[in-house]
């Protein structure tokens, strides 16, 4: 089964990605040979850094594949991080924390869906509303001086985690990092092999055609936004409950937006977006390592720019080449 946006990677692109993949792999192997500890540290950190980006991108692409441009992911993540953390503090349960983080992300999704799908408001404005609302709410109600009650711990798979290089990187991981990898492949499968996926893509490309085939485009969009909220929520929960262990003001730090760049770079496919997220994660990890090692005397402000710089460059190159879903950003109105 071939779809245009999925398979229109022409052969030039394939060769480019293949060669850069090989190059990257050899660099990793070489550096593992030179200093295994630093390499493992960088790779583990890349995977961790890529997690919220990949989850955010999943949220973005589930919305966009059905034709809704969601720039409120940043806000959804922030709300999720906040509520996840609060519930964790109140109940002492990390699991409940994660669940309420996800619920917060989905709730923000419902609000966004009501505004964009039911009321047909401008999607960019609604996304901005969600972002402002999240920043305002979490900033205002943020209680200072609450102590963290721990964070999600890494789990070591027996045997597998003993393997060289891949063991510590892939099989000694914390739960959300690991689930993200599974979710990426799951969403990819759902999007390209199930009824839900086919209908989602049809609604995103040409909602009127879907409508004539008895598919209610607006309902599809509505629940896709809510499903997207699940992923944004999980990303937020990851930030406060797994990565940092406390909530900080504005702790998403633009990740919701970088996730959109990641999604575009990955051509609106989950696996593509994951690859892009890993690349960004790597950039972030290298940056931290540089600061940590003090090997180069670059001011940290400059290394800190790295991920944002990459975002701009990637968007400049790819936003024109990669074709978005046909009806992206246009509310669907019946005749």
């Amino acid at each position, binding site marked *: *089964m*071939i*779809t*245009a*946006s999925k398979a229109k990677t022409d052969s030039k692109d394939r060769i480019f990605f293949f060669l850069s993949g090989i190059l990257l792999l050899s660099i990793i192997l070489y550096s593992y040979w030179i200093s295994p500890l630093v390499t493992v540290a960088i790779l583990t950190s890349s995977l961790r850094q890529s997690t919220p980006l990949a989850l955010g991108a999943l949220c973005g692409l589930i919305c966009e594949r059905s034709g809704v441009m969601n720039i409120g992911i940043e806000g959804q993540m922030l709300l999720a991080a906040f509520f996840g953390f609060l519930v964790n503090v109140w109940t002492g349960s990390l699991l409940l924390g994660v669940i309420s983080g996800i619920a917060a992300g989905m709730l923000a999704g419902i609000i966004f869906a009501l505004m964009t799908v039911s009321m047909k408001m401008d999607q960019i404005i609604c996304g901005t509303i969600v972002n402002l609302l999240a920043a305002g709410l979490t900033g205002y109600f943020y209680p200072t001086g609450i102590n963290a009650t721990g964070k999600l711990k890494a789990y070591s798979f027996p045997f597998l985690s003993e393997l060289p290089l891949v063991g510590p990187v892939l099989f000694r991981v914390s739960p959300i990092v690991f689930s993200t990898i599974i979710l990426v492949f799951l969403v990819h499968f759902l999007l390209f*092999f*199930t*009824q839900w996926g*086919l*209908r989602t*893509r*049809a609604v995103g*490309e*040409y909602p*009127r*055609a*879907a*409508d*004539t*085939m*008895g*598919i*209610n485009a607006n309902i599809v969009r509505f629940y896709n936004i809510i499903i997207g909220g699940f992923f944004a929520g999980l990303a937020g929960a990851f930030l406060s409950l797994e990565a940092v262990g406390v909530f900080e003001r504005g702790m998403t730090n633009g990740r919701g937006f970088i996730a959109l760049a990641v999604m575009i770079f990955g051509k609106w496919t989950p696996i593509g977006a994951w690859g892009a997220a890993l690349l960004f994660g790597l950039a972030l990890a290298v940056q931290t390592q540089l600061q940590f090692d003090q090997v180069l005397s670059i001011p940290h402000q400059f290394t800190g720019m790295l991920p944002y710089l990459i975002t701009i460059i990637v968007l400049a190159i790819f936003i024109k080449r990669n074709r978005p879903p*046909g009806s992206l950003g246009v509310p669907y109105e*019946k*005749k």
Partner: protein
Amino acid sequence: MDDITVLKLKGISKTFHGVRANSDVDFTLKKGEIHALLGENGAGKSTLMNIISGLLQPDKGEIFIHGKRQKIQNPRRAIQLGIGMIHQHFMIVPGFTSLENIILGSEPIKGVTIDFQQARRQIAILSDDCGLSIDPDAVTEDLPVGIQQRVEIFKALYRNAGILILDEPTAVLIPQETDTLFKILRKLVKKNISIIFITHKLQEVMQIADSISVMQQGVIKGVFSPEETDEQALAELMIGREVLLKNDYLPARPGKIVFEVKKLTVMNSRGYEAVSDVSFRVREREIVGIAGVQGNGQAELSESIAGLRKIKSGEITLSGRRMPALNPRKMIENGLAHIPEDRLKHGLVLPFSIADNQILCTYYRRPYVHFFGRNPKAILKNSRKLINRFHIKARGPEEAVQNLSGGNQQKVIISREFSRDSSFLIANQPTRGLDVGSVEYVHKQLIMLRDKGLGVLLISSELDEILSLSDTILVIYRGRVCSIVRKEDATMESIGRIMVRGFE
């Protein structure tokens, strides 16, 4: 044919903000018949069909299917009732394969995934049944229109449609494709499928219909069988006045050269050569016709001339000046007028009003700007004048173009391009989707513009149109001009042969 009624409409009325699209329509479809629905542009044909297929709700009236009164709230219900519709503008998801388009909305499921194997089997069975072949894995946007239409037919058959509605299916087809379509329709009728067929081409109606309904301004004017009527009578009933279906125009008296292309080579969007080494010239007071099966480079040719597509090599000269590539405004200011092939994509801004669409090329000039901004008075005045002159059916100049009927959308483009000061016109399929009255009007206007001094390049897959209007005829085949014929020497048969195989 049995005399069983499969579909009956009683007193259907529909109004759009004060515009009566259908008023008190009665309509009967019998089992296994092909029922042609005729009517001028904006008569309300598409509206009526959209009501049957659940896309629109009537304000009043009843629908009976197999004698039972039904309410068709949405397309899903229509599909359940066995109604399949092929829309004037195809409802195909461009990036999807034929298979994906066919099963969309009625996917066979195995476990959690779509059962693609099962879908393939079903499509193969349908193929055998109806003698229709299709490549399930082809991406639909790359397919020629005739095949896209076949995908649409498959969509309906896949859902076991017993009533098939085709809204102007032949408007985009070449004669050979039309013949194929008619063969398909005859086969379907034998399988007891009933068909409603909308068209503006009267000879097709006489050729295929079992009964004919004529609509005018939302009202059914009468139902006939092809034996008791003829093309002329139908045309007059539709338009409400006498129409000349065939015209012999005075020959041209060409002047000096206004437009010339030399050794033009153009690539298509996928990087293949679509126009190869084409040279020709158009003189004042002359219509040069380009005949050819659609998809032989006409679109790329006219786009490159209009400055919308990159030229690989060659040169274009307009009014004695060599034109830079990719500069539509320069072309327009030098006297180019352009009726593009794809009206929705390249001709109109759909959400904009009629008035604004009519000044798309001149909005920055007087009288449409004054002091600091637009001059709404002048814009509206221009629009009212054009709406009257071209008989555009709409509530007024402020109506959004997307609300117009297909034929009236085409008239908006024509009104804009014909009313501008220009010295050279490319008209690509100018009468596609127009009713006979409007076709006659556009043809007369083309001749009038020619006699006023314009050079015209007419691109059309309607051989009739090419033969009756052009003074010189070029036949294009696989991007090359294969033959240049003077009007006197041209016959339908010889040109038709060159069109399909590149030589006599």
